[in-house]
């Protein structure tokens, strides 16, 4: 095999599984270290640089970082990354003085942002400090988009939302509430330099079965949640069926319990392994005694004389192969489940009835706008899409990343620069060696299990709709959980020329992830690894040929716990632990690059100065 290329940004970024898994590339290990040091405000601001809404995301993020977390491969459970983010948010001091500010001198460019959700707010967050004038048009009378309308207050309290949105709008955003945009053409005629569409995926999918329109007790999930959020709905029947088993369904069933329901069933068509909802959301719902019923396919709404009596389902049986795939299914029988209300939570679409189809924004055959996945520009120059509006429903953290990228594009567009020549990402490496047996990070492996989030007890939590269920970690829990982080950004960096092949690193490695072996094809090398390769997606780190024998050092990144013992026991410093810092460019760096002309240098400098 050829020596692994580590000079680009990708290799070392990938090793930091959480950061690689995060769409916004949040520097997780670094903020966890800051929390460990009690530097909550610093941890908060580091988070905010990449994900903009740490307090919100620390509660309701889809947390793609956690399934990616190395700790979940070494043991069973990943680090509670998301809830540690909330720790930083909960315990921060007043950070307002350290937030980006808009300059008094504007740059004369005006940007229209459609929808006051997470995507548009991120664009405003990135562009306001550059002197842009940002106008947000929002149909509802409060900003926040789905974060406010679709996420119940018992998971995300309104004050958290208000505070983090205000951090952005207080920079002087022209926020026009209760102002729906009804025509793209009309908007374009107002002479904005750029338009960003962050209007989300506001149309809940319907279920057109017999009886659907014969009762007013059948609700579309996201619309119903919105009505609850704006206090237009305050009760529901005793027996509620939720159709669908995604995260919206989880919010619907738990909300029902708080509006008077006592018998709530979530009806799933498939077995549990195929559920779309995150495991932790399922757990939280089941803790509240929601029943999740599998293998039931909706067939008919049973309505008599305008009164909803229940729903008929086909009970299904599945043939599943060893790899867990469904081969076949058949109907076993039909059941009728009585209920007072039905909530449909089977998905949602983006919808653009307000964009004239001849205005220049091309739509594809599914009637979705054609959007460039890198620049987020539509086919009409100067019109950008992001969040769920761009590629359909994803989640908040993706919308934030879309917002960051769209902000860069908008800046380049407004300055006549090509959108595709964006600043590159970078990786900085710095040795973590401080002295004998001393490293600049806590490298002791702590075998503690994942801490369990304490909840408000089941009796009290239903008293009001907006009692936040999760209490947040205690100080002791934080102290333990931060040490579970394996510091994957402390990279094991190998210098082949210095190696004397003494085997010290091989012998000391507590997870046997190192092997010195004759070079060969990948398959041959894999067969000779000290521990079998369990995760083919995890990279192999192959060195250049070693001086004394011409063999190669091979590291399987999969299980490395970054304890640094290889570097600790290396007599020649061939192994070193080096802190990698991913340098992610934002719109502000584009501005700095414009001024100095040297993009990479500016990017690094901007990172240092925060």
């Amino acid at each position, binding site marked *: 095999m050829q020596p692994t290329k580590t000079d680009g940004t990708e290799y070392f970024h990938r090793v930091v599984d959480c950061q690689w898994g995060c769409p916004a590339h949040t520097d997780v290990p670094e903020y966890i270290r800051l929390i460990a040091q009690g530097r909550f405000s610093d941890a908060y601001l580091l988070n905010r640089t990449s994900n903009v809404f740490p307090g919100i995301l620390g509660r309701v993020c889809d947390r793609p970082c956690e399934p990616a977390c190395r700790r979940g*491969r070494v043991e069973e459970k990943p680090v509670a990354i998301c809830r540690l983010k909330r720790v930083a948010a909960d315990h921060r001091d007043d950070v307002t003085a350290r937030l980006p500010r808009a300059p008094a001198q504007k740059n004369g460019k005006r940007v229209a942002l459609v929808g006051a959700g997470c995507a548009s707010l991120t664009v405003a967050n990135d562009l306001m400090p550059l002197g842009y004038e940002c106008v947000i048009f929002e149909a509802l009378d409060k900003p926040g988009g789905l974060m406010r309308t679709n996420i119940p207050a018992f998971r995300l309290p309104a004050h958290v939302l208000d505070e983090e949105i205000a951090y952005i709008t207080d920079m002087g955003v022209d926020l026009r509430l209760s102002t729906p945009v009804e025509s793209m053409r009309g908007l374009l005629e107002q002479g904005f330099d750029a338009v960003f569409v962050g209007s989300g995926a506001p149309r809940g999918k319907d279920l057109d079965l017999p009886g659907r329109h014969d009762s007013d007790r059948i609700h579309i999930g996201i619309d119903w949640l919105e009505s609850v959020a704006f206090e237009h709905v305050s009760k529901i029947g005793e027996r509620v069926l939720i159709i669908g088993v995604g995260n919206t369904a989880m919010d619907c069933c738990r909300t029902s319990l708080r509006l008077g329901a006592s018998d709530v069933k979530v009806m799933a068509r498939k077995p549990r392994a195929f559920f779309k909802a995150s495991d932790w959301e399922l757990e939280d719902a089941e803790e509240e005694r929601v029943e999740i019923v599998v293998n039931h396919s909706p067939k008919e709404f049973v309505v008599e004389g305008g009164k909803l009596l229940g729903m008929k389902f086909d009970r299904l049986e599945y043939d599943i192969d060893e790899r867990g795939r469904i081969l076949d299914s058949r109907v076993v029988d039909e059941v009728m489940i009585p209920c007072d209300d039905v909530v449909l939570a089977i998905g949602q679409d983006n919808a653009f009835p307000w964009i004239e189809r001849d205005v220049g924004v091309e739509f594809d055959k599914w009637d979705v706008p054609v959007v460039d996945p890198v620049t987020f520009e539509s086919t009409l120059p100067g019109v950008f899409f992001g969040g769920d509006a761009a590629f359909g429903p994803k989640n908040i953290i993706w919308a934030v990343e879309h917002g960051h990228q769209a902000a860069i594009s908008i800046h380049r567009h407004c300055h006549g620069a090509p959108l595709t020549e964006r600043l590159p990402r970078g990786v900085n490496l710095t040795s973590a060696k401080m002295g004998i*047996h001393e490293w600049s990070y806590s490298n002791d492996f702590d*075998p503690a299990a994942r801490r369990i989030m304490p909840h408000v007890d089941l009796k009290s939590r239903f008293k009001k709709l907006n009692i936040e269920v999760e209490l947040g970690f205690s100080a002791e829990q934080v102290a333990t959980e931060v040490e579970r982080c394996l510091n994957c950004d402390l990279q094991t960096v190998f210098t082949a020329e210095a190696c*004397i092949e*003494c085997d010290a690193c091989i012998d000391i490695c*507590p*997870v046997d992830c190192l092997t010195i072996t004759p070079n060969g094809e990948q398959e041959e090398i894999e067969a000779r690894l000290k*521990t079998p390769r369990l995760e083919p997606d995890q990279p192999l780190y192959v060195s250049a040929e070693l001086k004394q024998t011409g063999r190669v050092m091979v590291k399987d990144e999969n299980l490395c716990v970054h304890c640094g*013992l290889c570097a600790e026991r290396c*007599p020649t410093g061939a192994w070193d632990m080096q802190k990698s810092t991913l340098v992610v460019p934002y719109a502000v760096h584009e501005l700095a690059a414009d001024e100095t002309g040297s993009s990479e240098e500016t990017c690094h400098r901007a990172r240092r100065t925060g």
Partner: protein
Amino acid sequence: MTSIAKPKIVHRGLRRNALGLTIRDYEGGMSTLCAGCGHDSVTAAIVQAFFELDIPPHRVAKMSGIGCSSKTPAYFLGASHGFNAVHGRMPSIATGAGAANRDLYLLGISGDGDSLSIGLGQFAHAVRRNLDMLYVIENNGVYGLTKGQFSASADVGSKAKRGEENRQPPIDPVQMAMALGGTFVARSFSGDKDQLVPLIKAGIRHRGFALLDVLSPCVTFNDHEASTKSYAYTREFRHRVVNADFIPPREEIKAAYDEGEVMPIELHDGSRVLLRKISKDYNPHNRGAAIDYIRSHHRAGEIVTGLLYMDEGDPDMHGLNNTSRTPLNELPFEALCPGADALASLQRRFR
């Protein structure tokens, strides 16, 4: 942090042996030897060998003397017995331990200082009485603990770190053991576990005294350019003459060998050692020829390694001295201490 311990992580890739133990269960404390010391590799090879042999750690007695090498029993088989003896006196203690309990696997760890200077006599007699043990010499040519003076195994012309040259001829434990009638004589290198681990396994299973001389470079005092016991020198001038594969009892021989190339030797417990000649003109069954071969190659600056001599037929100490089959700690008190009358009658026989 003043020192760093190796964390015990039971990860998903960890294998278990027939006893249900992982290799972690065969490790010991964290090494305090210099980073890169060859001895740590020998430690790791021992850990691997005992893990693969499915030997319960509590059935092993680790014996050692004084020196860097003799510290290493603290770093492997944490759950076994151990005795850290006076300098050079480990063979006597091991003899006593072996005589008292034949069911223990005796593993002696010594160094070139401990065995070839102060303990030379002890070493020679352990070979001579064919004590049933594996005796590992971690041989680096210097006294590492006292800052790198030449030991008795330093080659003529080899230079110390500060430049002095050694002029006294070395004592080669391999040639000595052969001359003294050793029944299992092997040499290996700490940097070659593929060779070292099977030799440790075979030596443990061999009935009688098994000498394993391991070139184990001193990374601090003897790993420089003019040294003949550095990693680089050993790799360059090492000459493998016989490879030994260890096959446990009841296991099929899977690898294909050319006819006439392999000499199988059956051990008393049913396991086999397959000697594979790499050098055609070497015969691991002819003591005299083997000594000549090793000596002439040493003169040419080459280090001959492998299972250099093996004879499974000679009686060991237990056979020669008719020791108790039952470990003394399991004998009933009356048998172990027959009383004053029995002593008096024994003494009468010698009058």
